[in-house]
Structures are given as structure tokens and as C-alpha cells.
């Protein structure tokens, strides 16, 4: 995967999209085989490589009792990033809710917060698992925008989705998985043509 | 310093601290202070010994034992070789109880200097010896008398 490329993973439920992303995020240890990053084993060097990988999965990695602002500030401090949290909240349209506890927010709002959290980190590899889920059309546009922006700054993207038509708008490559096996690999537009 | 070395260093430090604490437990003054029972000398020297329920341990002084089996009453002196405390117990000690043996008694020291106890336990030494002469016969008869 070259820098700045974006790979879209599609496939039916249980085909291994999420598992693959979790392995790449070092959230799961691969049972067999290895993932190589610049020629070195990802799992063996996970402590250093984690700083360069950002992952937005089904779990949003937020604290329910804190507000979006407090959440982002906490992650900001933990990672020693110096990001303007308020500007970020404005970017994902959470400004009006910034001081309410996350617990009271809708699923779509929480997704936006997850996206903002992803943007705190300046990763070399961003992993997005079903990023369009629970989002309205405006939110989906936002995700696509974020992907394009990350790509221009040289970040490689891997994205798992069952909405390939939306994903293809920002992706370069496409992969189709089924039952843990790679069925097809090529360009994102090529993948779209092959879909029924 | 690489990650692996930092990890090893932390592991080493953690094990040293834990090991040090265990060593302290074994070497420190804890053993002398947090005891299951007190010696007669310690009981004499304790500033407020009168209030508390404590355990007293020592040897039964030969010739001081006075055992009224029917009324479950026994008096004897306990010594550690230095100080001696008189014990008055209102329960029957176990069959092994005899003069010269180690005992632990639980109770309170009264104002008259007599230790009043409701529980007498015998402390056996770590020696296991074959009997000499008729000792064993005595022992068997004392068991029989008890049960």
C-alpha cells in the first residue's frame, strides 16, 4: 500500500473485514501469518507503530460521562498532541453539544465524535470500520471529506464498508472479501463495475 | 533505550521492590511484634496489658500445676525462664497437658497479677521421639481418662 492511497474493503457480514482492520490496528494478534509494515512485523513492533496508526471501529473509544470537549481534551493530553479541540469540534459539527455528556447524544453524534478523535492523531495509516454507519448524508459527506484530506497529507486509508458506492467516491483501490478469503483486488471503480 | 529494554528494566525494578518487601517481612521487626502470643516477660513490660485480651505462651513450671478435672479448673504458672505468670483457667486443657510442656493460654491479666483464661492450648515442639520407658503407658492412660 503506497502512501496516500485509499483501500476499500467490501464483503458480506462475517467475511473478515473488521477482523482484518483490527489486526492492522494491533487490536487483535493475528493467529497465523504476519502483517508487514515497511518490511518489519507489525505485532512485534506494535508499541512504536501504534503511534502512527489511527483506528475508528465499532467501539468509539470514548467515555460516556464526559462531554465531547472533555473527551477530546483527554485524548489530546494523553497523546501529547497540541490540537485546537474547539476548532475540531466545529469541523465535525459538534460545537452546539460540546458540553453535554456523551451518554445523552445520538448514535450519529457519537460517530462524529469518533471521527474527531481520529483527526487528533496525525497517522500514517487510518483504519475506518463502517465509517458511514448511523450518519446522515451530511455526515457521510464529512467522512468523505476527511478521507480526502487525510490522503492529501500522505495518510494511507483502509476502509471497510458495505456501502461501496459511497466509499468509492474517495477510494483508489478496492478489495472484495468473502469468508476470510480475498476474492478480488483492483481499483475502486473496477470493483463497483463488478458489483451487481 | 529501546522499548524492550525499558520493559525489562521495569520488570526488574518491580521484582526487586516485591522481593525487597518479602525480605523485609522475613528480616524486619514484624516477627517480633506481630505475634500470636506474648511471653511472660513481654506481658510484664507492656504498659497497658490489663485491658486487652491477649495470648500468653510459655512453659508450665513443674510443681505448680493444680488440676481439678471434675470442675474443669486448672491453675499453673507459666514461665519463659525470666518472668513467671500465674494462670487460672476455667476449662480443661487437652490430654497432652502436663508439667514442663509448652502452652498458649488466651485471656486477660487481672489486677491481682493472675492471668484468667478460658482456653488452654498445648504447643508441641518440632521433636518427634520414640518413647523412653513407661512414658507411653502414662500417656495412654491419660487419654483413656479423658475420653
Amino acid at each position, binding site marked *: 500500500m503506497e502512501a496516500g492511497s485509499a483501500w476499500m474493503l467490501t464483503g458480506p457480514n462475517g467475511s473478515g473485514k473488521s477482523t482484518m482492520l483490527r489486526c492492522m490496528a494491533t487490536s487483535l494478534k493475528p493467529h497465523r501469518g504476519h502483517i508487514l509494515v515497511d518490511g518489519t512485523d507489525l505485532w512485534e513492533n506494535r508499541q512504536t507503530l501504534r503511534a502512527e496508526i489511527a483506528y475508528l471501529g465499532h*467501539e468509539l*473509544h470514548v467515555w460516556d460521562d464526559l462531554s465531547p470537549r472533555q473527551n477530546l481534551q483527554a485524548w489530546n493530553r*494523553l*497523546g501529547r498532541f497540541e490540537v485546537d479541540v474547539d476548532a475540531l469540534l466545529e469541523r465535525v459539527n459538534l460545537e452546539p453539544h460540546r458540553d453535554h455528556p456523551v451518554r445523552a447524544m445520538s448514535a450519529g453524534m457519537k460517530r462524529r465524535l469518533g471521527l474527531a478523535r481520529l483527526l487528533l492523531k496525525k497517522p500514517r495509516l487510518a483504519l475506518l470500520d463502517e465509517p458511514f454507519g448511523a450518519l446522515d448524508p451530511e455526515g457521510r459527506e464529512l467522512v468523505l471529506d476527511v478521507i480526502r484530506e487525510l490522503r492529501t497529507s500522505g495518510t494511507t486509508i483502509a476502509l471497510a464498508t458495505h456501502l461501496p458506492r459511497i466509499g468509492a467516491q474517495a477510494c483508489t483501490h478496492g478489495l472484495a472479501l468473502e469468508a476470510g478469503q480475498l476474492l478480488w483486488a483492483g481499483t475502486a471503480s473496477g470493483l463497483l463495475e463488478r458489483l451487481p | 533505550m529501546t522499548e524492550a529494554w525499558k520493559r525489562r528494566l521495569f520488570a526488574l525494578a518491580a521484582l526487586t521492590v516485591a522481593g525487597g518487601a518479602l525480605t523485609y517481612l522475613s528480616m524486619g521487626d514484624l516477627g517480633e511484634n506481630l505475634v500470636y502470643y506474648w511471653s511472660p516477660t*513481654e506481658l510484664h513490660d507492656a504498659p497497658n496489658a490489663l485491658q*486487652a485480651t491477649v495470648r500468653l505462651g510459655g512453659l508450665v513450671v513443674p510443681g505448680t500445676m493444680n488440676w481439678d478435672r471434675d470442675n474443669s479448673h486448672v491453675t499453673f504458672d507459666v514461665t519463659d525462664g525470666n518472668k513467671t505468670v500465674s494462670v487460672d483457667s476455667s476449662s480443661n486443657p487437652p490430654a497432652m497437658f502436663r508439667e514442663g510442656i509448652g502452652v498458649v493460654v488466651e485471656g486477660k491479666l487481672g489486677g491481682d497479677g493472675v492471668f484468667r483464661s478460658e482456653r488452654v492450648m498445648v504447643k508441641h515442639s518440632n521433636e518427634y521421639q520414640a518413647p523412653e520407658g513407661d512414658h507411653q503407658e502414662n500417656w495412654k492412660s491419660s487419654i483413656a481418662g479423658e475420653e
Partner: protein
Amino acid sequence: MNVIRQTFEVLRKELLVEWRSPARVSGLFFFALAMLLMVAFASPTEGILRTQAGGTLWISLLLASTRSMDQSWSTEMEHGAAEGMLLWPVEPVAIYYGKALANTAILLAVTVAIFPLMVGLYDVPVRGDLSMLAAIAVMGCAALAAPGTLYGLITAQARGASVLLPLLMFPLVVPALLAASRGTMVVIEGDPMLQGSSWLSLLVAFNAIHWSLSGLFFGRVLEDG
């Protein structure tokens, strides 16, 4: 150093969560208070209450602490924030010490609130040294928090967590419970055998063992969990 800074940030985050939802600390307080009252109702005489005060206090705190450790990790697991910290990456050691320090602070707050109530309800005299009492309270709470934070993470992911955590924790903290209860009694009743400092050193040794070993293993548990 990075790890120390991260520990501080985790601690700060924990305390912020407590501040935003104070229901947890107040819940613990009322839990411990209810324990004290129940023991009082179940006791035949008030004299027994007085001689058992130290033990009752620490049993209440122990039971409250198992609730506390449970909740401490359930908020963390709700949206996978614990894994999020691991991947961020935050050093596992920092996550452990941050959370364990926060749990110590919470227990200590409960202790501070509950102790005067116990003195009043049980009609306990306080004859001994208050600084000794403070030291025993700090060390006792730390001794409950160290293994509790580690086992809380384990049982939060296992079946039947609410039963399992006490079963794992109780036998492990027996020396600490013993030392804290006896040490508290020494402060309450006066110290006939001058044992106070020895109980305190036993607590310190217990803390040294468990704070270091739990910190050592925590990363492994979090990573494999």
C-alpha cells in the same frame, strides 16, 4: 518522563469522570454506611460493636471497593476506551497506575466520610494517634486498590464478574485487611503492646508487593484481553 506524565493524565481523566458523575462515590459511601448500620443491627451488644469497630470499618470498605472496581472498569469498557488508550498509544503501566491511584483516592474519600460516622454510631473512643490513623487509612485504601484494579479488569471481561471479583480479591487482601483492622483498633483503643507501627509496616510491605507486581502484569492482561 512520558510514562509519569501519562499516569498523571489517566488519573486526571479518572477524577474528571468521578466529578462529572458523583453518583459512584456517593453510592459507595452509602453502601459502606449501610454495612455499618447492618452490622450494628445484627450485633447483640454495643460492647461488641466497639471491640469490632476496626474490622467492621475495613470489611465495609472492602465490600464497597469491590463495587468500585467493577464500576471503574465498566465505564472504561462501555465504548472500548481501555483498548482505545492501549492503541493511542498510552503505556499500559500508566493506565494501571493512573486508575489504581484514582481508585485509592475514591476509597480514601469514602473512608474519610465514613470514619467520623462510625465513631459516633459505635460510640468508639479515639485514644491513639490520629496521624497513625491517617497513614493506616491511606495504606489500607492503596492495598485494596492495587489488586482490585488489576482483577477488576479481568473480571469485567469474564462471566459472573460481580461474584468473581470478591472471590479473587478477598483471600488476596487478607494480610492487608488484618493489618488495617488491627492498626485501626490500635488507634481506637490505645496500644497496649506497641504494635501500631508494625501493622503499618506490614501494610507498606503488602503495598510494595502488590503495586509492583500488578503493574508488571497489567499490560499483559490488557493486551490479551
